């Protein structure tokens, strides 16, 4: 009555040449991401200065009728010098396209990200083909495939909402992950050790990586939300607006709402990861839960995000506190992925480092 899930004995040998090609693709993708990152940053700088010029011009025209920064997609009235009670200008809350002026640089940045993601996809797929298995079996592969998921999920989100304001952040993280993979955990293509030869690897790890990628994006949003809400409070209190680039970012409230929706999806994914991991653990180690360090941290992450969801329904805990919980959750994700994988002794010590 053995399970048919056992992987057949005869796996073809790995294709080292294709593996090298994959590494070349990975390098090309990294370069493309770096260029995209430069354009994203440039866009932030440029748009920010465009707004500033527009504003000063408006301030000059104050005498006529001080109209709101119509073209900038600004929500409130511009921070008229001396005007204290108006909320600070933020990008359009709907995060739909077409609300602001055209941002040519940002378009180039997005196009480059798409290009990078395509090359990146080729790298990930060729790695899998070279090894005759899914390309997530060691730290190098968790990083590269994870980064790919981050890029793809970001692009999908980008196709529906104008999230270019977190472009530099997200693409920056992708670059960091790719660097970590190639510098920190270089691993040539190889087959899987018996402990990883299971269909559950495909299910469990892919959902884990996808959920983590979503948590990455909500992390970026929560950080921006905190910055934005402190800026909002500052400007409302009549202080000087020191973080002017945040005018490209929607209001703290709408950031919170959007990251809540993404976090909800990611949380369901994480719940599934936890369950699939337990089923796999039952097959491999004979118990579905054993408080192995990796299991502990997966559980901690789950509970922190459950706390986040609860916070959203608890008076006094929405807004800033919820954002902190979302950030804490993500820090746990990062900890689980780095420190726990590398330094903690446990049954999960197969990460190939």
């Amino acid at each position, binding site marked *: 009555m*053995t399970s048919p899930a056992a992987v057949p004995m005869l796996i073809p*040998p790995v294709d080292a040449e294709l593996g090298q090609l994959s590494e070349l693709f990975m390098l090309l993708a990294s370069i493309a991401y770096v260029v995209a990152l430069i354009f994203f940053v440039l866009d932030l700088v440029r748009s920010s200065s465009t707004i500033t010029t527009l504003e000063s011009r408006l301030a000059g025209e104050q005498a006529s009728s001080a109209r709101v920064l119509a073209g900038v997609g600004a929500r409130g009235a511009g921070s008229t010098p001396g005007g204290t009670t108006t909320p600070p200008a933020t990008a359009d809350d709907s995060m739909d396209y077409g609300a602001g002026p055209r941002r040519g640089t940002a378009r180039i940045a997005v196009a480059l990200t798409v290009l990078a993601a395509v090359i990146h996809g080729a790298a990930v797929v060729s790695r899998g083909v070279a090894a005759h298995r899914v390309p997530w079996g060691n730290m190098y592969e968790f990083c590269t495939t994870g980064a790919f998921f981050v890029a793809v999920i970001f692009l999908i989100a980008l196709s529906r909402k104008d999230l270019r304001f977190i472009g530099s952040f997200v693409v920056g993280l992708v670059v960091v992950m790719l660097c970590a993979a190639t510098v920190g955990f270089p691993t040539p293509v190889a087959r899987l050790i018996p402990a990883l030869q299971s269909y559950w690897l495909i299910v469990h790890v892919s959902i884990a990586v996808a959920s983590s990628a979503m948590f990455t994006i909500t992390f970026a949003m929560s950080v921006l939300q905190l910055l934005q809400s402190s800026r909002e409070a500052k400007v409302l209190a009549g202080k000087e607006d020191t973080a002017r680039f945040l005018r490209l970012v929607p209001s703290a409230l709408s950031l919170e709402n959007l990251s809540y929706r993404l976090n909800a999806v990611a949380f369901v994914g994480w719940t599934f990861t936890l369950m699939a991991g337990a089923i796999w653990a*039952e097959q491999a180690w004979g118990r579905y839960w*054993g*408080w192995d360090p990796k299991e502990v941290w997966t559980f901690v992450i789950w509970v922190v995000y459950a706390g986040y969801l609860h916070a959203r*329904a608890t008076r006094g805990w929405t807004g800033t506190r919820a954002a902190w919980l979302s950030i804490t959750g993500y820090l746990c994700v990062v900890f689980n992925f780095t420190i726990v994988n590398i330094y903690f002794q446990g049954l999960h010590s197969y990460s190939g480092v």
Partner: protein
Amino acid sequence: MKQDVTRDAEQGSAGGAKPDVVLPALGLLGTLRWAWTQLTSMRTALFLLLLLAVGAVPGSLFPQRSANPAVVTQYLQENPTSGPILDWFQMFDVYSSVWFSAIYLLLFISLIGCVIPRAIAHFKAVRSTPPRTPKRLSRLPVHGTIEVPAARARATGLTPMLAAEQAAALLKKRGYRVDVRDTATGTPSVGAERGLTKELGNLVFHTSLIGVLVSVAVGGLFGYNGQKVLVEGESFVNTLIGYDSFDPGSNFTGDQLDPYSLRLDSFDVRFDREQESHYGQPLDFTANLTTQDGPGAEEEQQVLKVNAPVTIGGTNVYLVGNGYAPVVTVRDGEGDIAQQGPVVAVPSDGLYTSLLVIKAPDAQPDQLGFVGFFLPTAFVDEAGVSFSRDPDPFNPQLNLNSYYGDLGLDDGTPENVYVLDTDDLTELNSRTTDDGGIVLGVGQTVDLPEGKGSISFDGLQRYVALDIHHDPGQLGALVFSTLALLGLSASLFIGRRRLWVRTAEGTDGRILVEYGLLARGEDTRLAGEGASVEKALLDRWLVPDGPVGENGQQEAGASSTAGGGKPNTITKDNS
């Protein structure tokens, strides 16, 4: 509006408790009530959840007895001051500690206190009619009006009452629960609601968590697990004495064991021989077993692999480890065989450099003991240190120190077969003595100094380490966690909406239809829903059912003004 949501949640959870409770002077009963209210409040649940997360962390920082008691003992030896303090705080038994148990038990009590009133409230909500129609629908986040011109209304005989009924029918088709009210007035209205499954999902989710906890407890009470090392050719019978170690649940009774048997016929290992970077990495472990489900049953051939346990006699058998068992013969000073057979060597690295201990308590005149290591492919480096170069047995070698004296096995205290306490023994030879200790290849024999006897390395076998588990709570845990996942998805992704329609007749015979929508919780698709309902209503009244002339339609030319609030007008107090 978010405040609304919050209040709903809290009322649901605590049966209408006010969050800012003033300490009542109500005696015991009152105090208990107050404590209960506090415990089941959303804020407490949140606090306990975060506490649970924090409480789980130390278990990953310190070694845990449940996972590996030996490491804990070692830790205590290495940290004589901090160790006992940590131990007092149960840092080595975090998940069975008093404080961790207290956190999750309180959380689950809170959960029960939260779910029951909400389940009752939900039950009532399902049976009651949708809430009464607000006075001013234009105040709702999404709203709009439709006008059916007098001519059109007359042509189709549309009255406010009829319009309300038709709107209700239409909403019903869209999955709403509907209720037509104010029928006696000139402005009848429809109350509609959908998405009660959202709350149901939430209840199922939380209840299933209790189910998971109970299943885990059942497994802990009635389950058992044990370990057994089997050398090729050996058999195991599922009885208490058959196990090397056995860990029963607290309600375990011996007659729970089903006396099946397993024999390890052979164990096949395959290492990577193609790739230089991963040369020698394991690719496959396969144990070939002959099983017999009880004394009289027929024998069966089964294959056991790392991710594929064998199920037999209500247990699952897992392959959790493997290694080499060198076959040795120890002769004593009188030339008699004192010990013969395979000795399990415990691997300490991926190249199967293994530690082993041989005990020959029957040796005469002195008991003999050996400690050393086994190398599957022995090599000697420049410094003269032996090491293993490959996990496969290309050049198997035993390197041993020998001892004689009282092995301490006779007083009946349980002994670890993998450890030899050499304190009370006299060393015969070792790597540091002139003869360099015992180095043995397969087929070789070495005589011990002082005529104490000899040892031969006769051959090599493999062994497997098996874990055998019986967990009656496992299925429950799977079922409940699956339910939890479904409930969670329903709860998070279903929109709960209320919709009202009010109809009236204008002075000139126009029919005025006003509608408004309200979401409970966040719902970004509310505006979209409003638009499609409006379109459906327009189609219903303005596009003729039968083939009516185009003029009729043109003439109808109804107008509508939708909108109002933005799709996501849920504002919250971020204070």
